């Protein structure tokens, strides 16, 4: 990895102030770098901070959230402190987003062709006719059948898969350097999901862009990413090349994630900590995953682990990483 990363997140803390309480920390010191051309998967459960991370990367932390510490550098620009106009010039042009629920998020009263064309028109300063021409080209590129007719269609007239393709067309229309996909295919049928993801991967790769695949479905990352980052409670707990990760996951949480998708109830059972009725409260300052960890020991309650490198190019945030093959 010689080239400077296209997205460089270092020690990022994002918090949401709460009324008369400690602020809620959505991200607690996240480090993540995406080199040019690489596909990284970011996996975690709901509320783990995946979407906040994506929003922070775009310089759009949802209010009233604030970046407490650390920084997000996109292509050398600090997205946390970027001016409004400069941010608008970057988003959609160099950093593009593929959203999850396109039929709700596309503008309901603008034809989809026009919505693609708008991106080109406002970002690349071409004529409207040229923008329309490129939009139609994009519609064909994302393999929407009968693209000329669909150009004038409204979002509600498209199927979910079709709308997802439109969103991909919007994301790639200006040849961005990084594409973030936030749970983009979670609403689709499995077969359509595969088609759309294959398409996304092919097109992103063709344009030489990097991609951050945010998902709850760990299986997706296996097929589409070269590295995988597991996020839990606002912290990256494991970062590993995909092959290594699926071969020997090191963090107990990674294993519960894998177990959740496996067909083996025993595996699931073995890695799920049974609910404790008279559990002592987990003290602050310990490992965030301790409450749910089957391998918890004294040290986990006393001392928060740091993300540290292991063999095979992976890092893990655990005092006692799992060292055997579990599957």
């Amino acid at each position: 990895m010689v080239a400077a990363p296209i997205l460089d997140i270092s020690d990022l803390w994002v918090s949401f102030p709460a009324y008369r309480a400690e602020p809620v920390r959505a991200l607690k010191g996240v480090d993540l770098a995406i080199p040019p051309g690489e596909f990284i998967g970011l996996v975690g459960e709901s509320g783990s901070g995946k979407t906040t991370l994506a929003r922070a990367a775009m310089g759009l932390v949802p209010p009233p959230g604030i970046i407490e510490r650390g920084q997000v550098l996109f292509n050398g620009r600090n997205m946390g402190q970027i001016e409004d106009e400069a941010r608008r010039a970057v988003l959609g042009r160099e950093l593009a987003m593929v959203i999850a629920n396109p039929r709700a998020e596309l503008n309901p009263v603008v034809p989809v062709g026009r919505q693609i064309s708008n991106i080109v028109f406002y970002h690349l300063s071409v004529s409207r006719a040229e923008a329309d021409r490129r939009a139609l080209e994009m519609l064909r590129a994302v393999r929407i059948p009968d693209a000329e007719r669909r150009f004038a269609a409204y979002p509600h007239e498209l199927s979910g898969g079709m709308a997802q393709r439109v969103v991909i067309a919007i994301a790639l229309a200006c040849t961005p350097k990084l594409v973030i996909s936030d749970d983009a295919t979670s609403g689709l049928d499995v077969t359509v999901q595969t088609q759309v993801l294959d398409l996304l991967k092919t097109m992103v790769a063709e344009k030489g862009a990097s991609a951050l695949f945010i998902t709850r479905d760990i299986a997706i990352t296996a097929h589409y990413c070269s590295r995988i980052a597991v996020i839990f409670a606002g912290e990256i707990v494991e970062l590993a090349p995909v092959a290594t990760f699926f071969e020997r996951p090191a963090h107990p949480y990674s294993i519960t994630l894998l177990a959740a998708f496996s067909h083996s109830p025993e595996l699931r059972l073995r890695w799920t900590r049974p609910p404790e009725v008279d559990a002592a409260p987990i003290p602050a300052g310990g490992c965030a995953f301790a409450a749910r960890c089957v391998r918890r020991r004294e040290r986990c309650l006393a001392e928060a682990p740091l993300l540290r490198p292991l063999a095979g190019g992976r890092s893990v945030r655990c005092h006692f990483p799992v060292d055997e093959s579990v599957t």
Partner: protein
Amino acid sequence: MMPLVRYIARRIVFVVPQLFGIVLVSFFLVKLIPGDPAVMMLGPTASAQSLAELRDKMGFTKPLLEQLTHYLADVARGDLGTSWQTTRPVTEDLFQRFPATLELVTFGLLLAIAIGFPLGVAAARLKRGVTRKVADYYGLLAGALPDFWLALVLIYVFYTVLGWIPAPLGRIDMAILPPPTISGSLVIDSLLAGDWEALRSSLGHLALPVLTLGLINAGPILKMTQSMTERTLSSDFVRYAEMCGLPRRVVLRQAVRAALPSVVTIISVLYGFLIGGAVLVEIVFSWGGAGQYAVQGVLNADLNPVLGFVVFSAVLSLVTYLIVDLIYFALDPRLRA
């Protein structure tokens, strides 16, 4: 275009039963108003016999249902009866007075939109700052002030003190010959006739009542524009537009565009309401509009003008709502399916 035709046709089919229902309800309601037209017409000294004869002649002694069928049959022929106060057919009276009210209400609402809409958008866009404060207080004030009171204040300031406008009596100076009636609006008719003197006079008379209605009704339009634009500004598609880095003005335009249907709704509701609801302003300016006519009818147990007014307003409201539906149709492609 086929869905549009079908849409309109379906709406028009429903107009007849709607009108029938409105006439039915208002007929019985009007009959419930206490007061005896015969006493009003003949005065307190009339003999019991002449009163009875007049009631009989006017059909008031017949069963209510028979009166209703008679009335409905007349309405179907376009005959709304005669007013005993003006001794003229109600239809004629209303055709003379409704344009006055429509002129007042239409220009008043146009002014209200011109004030309320931009202020609402500005207030929604800027969460803090002076504009927001102005908009908040304006909405509160416009909602709290009675229109007739504001009318009196405006008359005091602009007529009594400053003397900028003509006396608030009617729609045009007595000494000036009104232009030939084409649209019924004196301003438009003066323009069409190229009669500048009449135009100046009618504009002068129109200014204060329009200002009154405009200032008061800008309040609800402002509030609706503001709250709907705020909502669309935090909606999913606006957030997505932000993520796509579209220019600020484009995002704002999309948000305002999405807020339009609700704004159109409140405008149409205000329009229907003001046809009868501007009556206090009409009285203050001796406007001679339809609302004034109906109130006179109620006060003097003159039933035909009251019913006639209801029928006219109902038709007008139905037409307004039809137009509004067509606007929705143009604004929202999801309705065109």
